[in-house]
């Protein structure tokens, strides 16, 4: 019955109101269903984004009103803040080493599993488990213990007569313990690689091996090119995740980023500035530099993708 009304109402030619009714009938339900998301988008995302951009040009301690500071925060960051420079170095180092290594492990294991191995579901589940648990504080605590001076790693090394250092309190190694922790969680990109490998038509390999192409050549000429969309996807997701990483560095260093700032992740520094020193303006500027970094990286990846990502269709 209501359907009938909808169909006949415009033809009946009710003046003026009918325009609004038509708009309501066409667009109303969509916007109603989106209402919670709209409130969230404007109130918790877009509004705060604009506000944090403004705050990044102020000095703001949360208790008194923000004081306009022009570009002071940004100037200080790039010219007169050794901790900023340190945190940038640490984060870049972490991203550059953890992401490719993690993806290499993920792809290697996925290819091994894709050979039609018996027990694939079991292996897949076992390798996935660390990814699922890894974000937890409990795992960071465990890691701190494993790489401590009297920790598990050094117990094993002592079997071979090696006296290992205290990995987490040695600035030469502390960041590497966090990189190892990231690599340990290669399970979820591995699952995505596995799904991608399944999509590669088997007859391509059959044709290639009939032509006498070695396994090595098949990997470089078939597997990798056809898998580039998945590599691309995984690389972007994992890189953004690596930039945002916070909890492990916080727990392992007790919130300090020490020894001598060697685990001072960018996010950790931002947290210290905002909630340790209540320099909210400066922290906002840090956040915008992070956003710019992520945006530049993403844009760069998308722009270069047409040269190395292989899309059929």
């Amino acid at each position: 019955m209501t359907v009938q009304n909808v169909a006949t109402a415009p033809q009946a030619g009710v003046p003026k109101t009918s325009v609004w009714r038509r708009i309501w009938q066409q667009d109303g339900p969509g916007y109603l269903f989106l209402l919670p998301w709209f409130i969230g988008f404007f109130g918790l995302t877009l509004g705060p984004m604009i506000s944090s951009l403004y705050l990044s040009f102020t000095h703001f301690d949360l208790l008194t009103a923000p004081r306009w500071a022009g570009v002071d925060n940004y100037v200080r960051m790039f010219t007169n803040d050794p901790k900023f420079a340190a945190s940038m170095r640490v984060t870049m180092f972490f991203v550059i080493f953890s992401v490719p290594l993690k993806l290499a492990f993920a792809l290697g294991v996925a290819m091994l599993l894709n050979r039609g191995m018996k027990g694939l579901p079991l292996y897949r589940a076992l390798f996935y488990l660390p990814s699922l648990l890894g974000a937890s504080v409990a795992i960071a605590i465990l890691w701190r213990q494993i790489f401590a001076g009297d920790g598990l790693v050094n117990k094993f090394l002592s079997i071979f007569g090696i006296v290992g250092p205290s990995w987490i309190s040695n600035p030469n190694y502390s960041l590497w313990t966090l990189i190892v922790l990231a690599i340990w969680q290669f399970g979820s990109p591995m699952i995505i690689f596995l799904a991608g490998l399944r999509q590669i038509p088997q007859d391509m390999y059959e044709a290639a091996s009939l032509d006498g192409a070695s396994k090595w050549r098949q990997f470089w000429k078939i597997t990798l090119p056809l898998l580039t969309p998945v590599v691309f996807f995984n690389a972007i997701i994992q890189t953004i995740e690596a930039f945002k990483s916070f909890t492990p560095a916080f727990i392992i260093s007790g919130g300090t980023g020490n020894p001598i700032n060697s685990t001072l992740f960018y996010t950790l520094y931002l947290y210290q500035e905002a909630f340790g020193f209540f320099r909210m303006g400066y922290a906002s500027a840090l956040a915008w530099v992070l956003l710019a970094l992520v945006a530049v990286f993403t844009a760069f990846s998308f722009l270069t993708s047409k040269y190395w990502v292989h899309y059929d269709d």
Partner: protein
Amino acid sequence: MTDAPMKLTVVGAETPLWRKRMMSVISHGLLIGASILMLYPLLWLLAASFRPENEIFTSASIIPSAWSLDAYFRGWNGLRTSFGVFFTNSFIISIASVIGNVMACSLAAYAFARLEFRGRKIWFALMLMTLMLPYQVTLIPQYVLFRQIGWVDTFLPLIVPKFLAADAFFIFLMVQFFRGIPRELDEAAMMDGAGPWRIYWKIILPLSTPVLATAAIFTFIWTWDDFFGPLIYLNRMSDYTVMLGLRTFTDSTGLSDYGGLFAMSVLSLVPIFVFFLMFQRLLIEGIATTGMKR
């Protein structure tokens, strides 16, 4: 699913059988080795939580010489506030977040996947862009806002955003799934006079239990694991989540009660592990399908 790769080896008929056998043994050897290496820390943690305290730092084995539940009792009451309170808080926040996420994200996803309205493409693109947004960019104004309305030291800043579909990832996940449901079902229902709400409620949701379950489980796990949110919004120990409790434990005990700390760490992983055991297929499929959408 095991058929396809098998063909590959059949085609390489030049490779003798013994070589294939050897390759298989080597592959399994590698995988088993890797599994042990990866799971060893977890098993060691489990063992350490049952060990007598004096053995924790002397043993690298994963089988305790004597089993004891002492550490669990010590850890449970190791802080001023019992871990029972922390677990209750974590459960309240996580379950409320699950309800909020499933409701709000499925509403938005239905609009994006099924309804025609002006501006849909733009809103959808904006929604996708929020996926890439580092949360730090909105963090401080959000904190100021929640502080002004008196929500700091309550669970609301952790829960309410979920009811406003702030986790765009799940909207995306659901849109992908809803698009796979045949449109004829909607059209038939529309013929029978059903409006968008009834189609959403009576057709789309009942047919989407796999994706709703996936979203629910991931929301639970991610909220349970969340450390940053509780760290900035919850300051009273009676409001702490398990993750904050663990962190306080590492600070306050000054390395004295490792057994208790490990025992509580193990307990904090139990809910996640239970989900993993019950739903690993669903979780793995969820990752694989979203991963394929480029």
